[in-house]
Structures are given as structure tokens and as C-alpha cells.
């Protein structure tokens, strides 16, 4: 009998430690499936961040290293200098990339570093227990904004894809979401494109992935998907912010 579905070799045969309904697992699998389909698992070098996905190397079946909080783009820049012929990527959350690591991501993008960054935006600090992130929406509750984020107190959420798209360095920037099967399929396409851009030597590629955190949002997984669709996509529009043509 011909199998209609097989588990990707890109994921190690273990259960992830992520909360039920968390979309980290989906994002991991999309990236690893893509590398597998492109025949790149043996050549891929990944950088895990600090945050929930600090343990990504326990699940992603490629060579990986950890980075200090926010420093993954600097680490990947160093890796890239040693291995110009490999595929390098960072996987970073919103606290890691958009708060403490803003300097590193902006400069790596501006340099047009030839690696790909997958930016998981779920609008909250997950690992530390649900504090306000730089991407937490106005009105969104967190343990450091219990009545909801206000502009007066905490300023406005950061739109990272738009911000990076103002730079001349990046080759490809797209924002996707993991709230529905259609969006997940689109996300996988974007991930593939990011690697293709890297392989073609066109420069820095960046995919922002709108994700859920049911635990810290205090919602059931289906409700979290709905909340993402209704609130996050409204503030963080999906789409291509910088395009490159891969020949």
C-alpha cells in the first residue's frame, strides 16, 4: 500500500514539550518539512533563541546551536562566515527578536546576511509566564499589563516586517499566520521561498509567523486561533513586504 502521509525526517521522533495548541510545533514542522523536501537537512545549521523554543534543537533534526537572548542573528552571521556553502537559519520569538535582540536583527538585515530568520510573533513572553512583549497589542492583557496594554504606559506594538522592509539590505520579507489550513499552506510556501532566496545568494530572508499562545492568552486553542485571526492579522497585515525573484 502506498503511504499517503509520512512524518518528516526533519523532526526527531519525540514529543515536543510545547503546550497543547501552541503553534511552535506547526512552525517547526513546516520549516523542517521544507528543508527535507529541498534535500537540505544534512546541510542546515540552525540557531535556537532564548524563549520557549530554546529547546528547538531537541526537536529539529539538524545541526543546531543556542544563542544568548536576542543574539541569534549575530551567531548566525558568525556561522555563515565559516560555512558559506551551508543553509543557515535562526528561529526567534518576539521577545528575543523584537525586544532584546533588535540591534542584532536590524544590523544582520541591513548587512544582507545570507541566512533566513523565522520570527514567531505571538504577542507575549511565553517562557517567562505571559509578560507583555513588544508585539503585545493595545488592550491585550498580560501579566505586566493586567488591564490591557495602553499606548500611554507602554507605547505601541512593533511591526517588525514593516520596519525591516524599510532597509535596503533584506531580499525577502513576508508575514504569514498559522490560524487556518490555508494560511498554514501559505506559510510553508513563504518558508520555502526564504530558503530559495538564501540558496540563490540574494541576501537576507525573513518570515514573520503570527502564532498563538493559548496558555498565556488564557484561551482554548480554537479560541486562540480565532483571536489571532480577528486581532493580530488586523494589526499585523499578512503579505509580502519585500520581494525577490528567484531564478
Amino acid at each position, binding site marked *: 500500500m502506498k503511504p499517503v502521509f509520512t512524518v518528516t525526517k526533519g523532526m526527531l521522533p519525540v514529543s515536543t514539550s510545547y503546550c497543547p495548541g501552541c503553534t511552535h510545533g506547526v512552525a517547526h514542522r513546516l520549516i523542517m518539512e521544507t528543508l527535507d523536501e529541498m534535500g537540505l537537512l*544534512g546541510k542546515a545549521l540552525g540557531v535556537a533563541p532564548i524563549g520557549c523554543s530554546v529547546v528547538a534543537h531537541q526537536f529539529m533534526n539538524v545541526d543546531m*546551536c*543556542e544563542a544568548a537572548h536576542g543574539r541569534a542573528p*549575530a551567531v548566525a552571521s*558568525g556561522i555563515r562566515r565559516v560555512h558559506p556553502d551551508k543553509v543557515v537559519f535562526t528561529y526567534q520569538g518576539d521577545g528575543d527578536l523584537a525586544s532584546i535582540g533588535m540591534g*542584532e536583527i536590524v544590523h544582520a538585515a541591513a548587512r544582507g546576511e545570507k541566512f533566513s530568520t523565522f520570527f514567531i510573533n505571538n504577542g507575549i513572553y511565553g517562557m517567562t509566564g505571559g509578560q507583555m512583549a513588544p508585539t503585545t497589542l493595545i488592550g491585550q492583557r498580560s501579566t505586566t499589563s493586567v488591564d490591557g496594554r495602553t499606548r500611554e504606559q507602554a507605547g505601541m506594538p512593533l511591526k517588525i516586517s514593516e520596519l525591516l522592509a524599510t532597509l535596503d539590505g533584506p531580499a525577502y520579507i513576508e508575514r504569514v499566520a498559522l490560524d487556518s489550513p490555508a494560511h498554514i499552506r501559505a506559510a510553508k510556501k513563504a518558508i520555502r521561498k526564504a530558503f530559495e532566496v538564501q540558496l540563490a545568494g540574494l541576501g537576507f530572508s525573513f518570515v514573520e509567523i503570527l502564532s498563538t499562545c493559548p496558555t498565556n492568552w488564557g484561551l482554548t486553542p480554537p479560541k486562540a486561533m480565532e483571536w489571532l485571526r480577528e486581532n493580530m492579522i488586523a494589526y499585523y497585515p499578512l503579505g509580502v513586504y519585500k520581494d525577490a525573484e528567484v531564478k
Partner: protein
Amino acid sequence: MGEKVLMKGNEAFAEAVIRGGCRFYFGYPITPQSEIPEFMSRELPKRGGKFLQAESELGAVNMAYGCGAAGGRGFISSSSPGIALMQEGMSFLCGAEVPVTILNVSRGGPGIGSIQPGQADYNQVTRGGGNGDYKIPVFAPASIQEAVDILYEAPEIADKFRNPVMVLADGLMGQMMEPVLLPEPKPEITSADIPKVKPWAISGSEKGERSVVKSLRLQPEVLEAHVSHLFEKYAVMEKELERVECEGLEDAEVVFVAFGTMARLAREAMELLEADGIKAGLIRPISLWPYPYSAFEKLSGKTKVVVSVELSMGQMMQDIKLGVLGRCPVKLICRTGGMLPTSLEVVEKTKKILEEVR
């Protein structure tokens, strides 16, 4: 053996590291070591290497971490406040066992302090600075030749122990010129060699085993075992890397302890004291960690006082006292803030100290 050349300290240091096999440099400008990134930006591309100016010292140390994790021989340099920023990365380098060569051309502090030479980073570099149980070997050469020889060897020490290695030079050495014999260049490790030479490094799982370079160990028993492993390694390093030079200890009435440029000043003070009929000796720690405590066992009964000569408010005194173990008093002659004593000043202060202890 090559010809002797006259080089500015900072440029000689950079050349030595390239000859020692480093091909990757990451740095951020800071006085008094900016000649190093300048030199590397000119030289590395010509010699098959890569230069990258980082956005900050945080960027630089983490680029070096990525480079080292990927099996490359990385080099970073900075000066005191920049080293402070890099120390987060140094803790990660030690935890994840990633080799990197580090040069600290130190200046005055605290804070932004001054750009003049200083040794007030003694505690910073020998006592950690980053979080957690870790150790970094620190070598403090006293001449440009010695600095060149140590920096030439440093990438190999770093690789052998899978640990960062630091060389501490004061700003004065960075600016000074002195004839130096440059060692023969060592062959580089190419990216194709890495899977064989450093199978633990991340170079792609196609090499066979999957590699993970990390410092995270969430289970306490696993982390404890890892730290114990690190400390077994540090114990070997303590045996193998301790370096010290002793002079005139057998009949010295006063023994100076000094490192770097201050050791040269103390040496001249010894000569001046000898002309005045006072026998002085010198213990010159070349490795600040591991500290050469055993050298103090050679102190003779004739020694009435041990004097630390340093450009800090006595940061090395603690280690000296651990070496002296109460055999005699330990005193301090110091200047700080970028001020430098003269050998004559050291002689005068030493005579006063001797009057007190005689």
C-alpha cells in the same frame, strides 16, 4: 625563523593571531585597540579570512560564538568597557564549550573611565563577570614579543580545551613599538576540515552525527554533571597553563609582584634598589588565571615584605595574599586612572615600606 620587525603592539598582536591560525575576526571600535580591527579589515581578506565589524561588542562576541560553534577559529578584541559587554557571551562560550581567542587591551575605569592604560580589570577578567561557574585562562604578557608568542599559541589552547582564552595587554603595550620576531604561520582549518577536526561543531548533519552546541541544561542533575565536567577540565588547565617568571627570590629583602608593563617597571626598580644595596626580587605572573600561587613557596626567610605593583587599587592583592599565606606582610604600590608610576617612585615608596617593616 623570520626577520625581526618593528611593529606597533596592536598590529603585532593581530598579526600573531592570524599566524596562529585564526581566520575570523569580529570587533567593534574602542580606544586603545582600534588598530586591531583596522589591521584585520586590511589583512584577513588577503589571507583567506573574513572580517566583520559588529554592531556592538555584544554582536562581536556572539558572532565569535557562532563562528566557534561552527568550528571556525575566531578572534575578538576590545578594551575594558567593551569586555564588560562581552562577558555575557563569555559565559555562554564556556557553558557551550566554544573556543575563541580574546584580547583585552585594557584602559582606566570605572565606567567609561579614560583611554589611558590601566590594570583595574584584574577582577573583571579573573573572577568571571559573566554568570555561572566558569573559568577563562588569562595571560598577561610583559613585552610585545611575549604577547605575540602567547597570541600565536592561544587559538590552539582554546581548541584543545574547547574554551575561550584571553590575553590581557594594557593600553601602553598596544601603542608601544618594540622589535619582534614573528613566528611562522600555522596552517588554517578550512570549512572542509571541520567535520574531521571538530566533529562536535555544527557543520551539517550530513557528516554523520548530529551536532548540538548548547549551554542549556534544564535538569539540575544534568547541569551539575556538566559543570563538574567543566571543572575537571579547568583542573587540567590549572596544571598545564600556569605560567610565571621569578627573579632574585633567594636573597631578596623585598619581593615585587607585578604583571604586564608594571612588571617591567618593577624590574627596573629592582636594579635601582640593588644599586642602593637593597636586594629585591620579582614574581611576574604571566597567567593571571590560573594564578601562580605556587611561586610564592619560593619566598625565602630573608624576605621581609611582598609588594604588589599595579595600575589598580590593589585588585591583585587578594591573590598575592593567597600565595603568601601570611609568611610576611603584603603591601601595595599603585597608581590608577591612567597615571603611571616611574621606577624611581616605586623605589622611594619601597624604601618607606621597608622602614615600616624592618
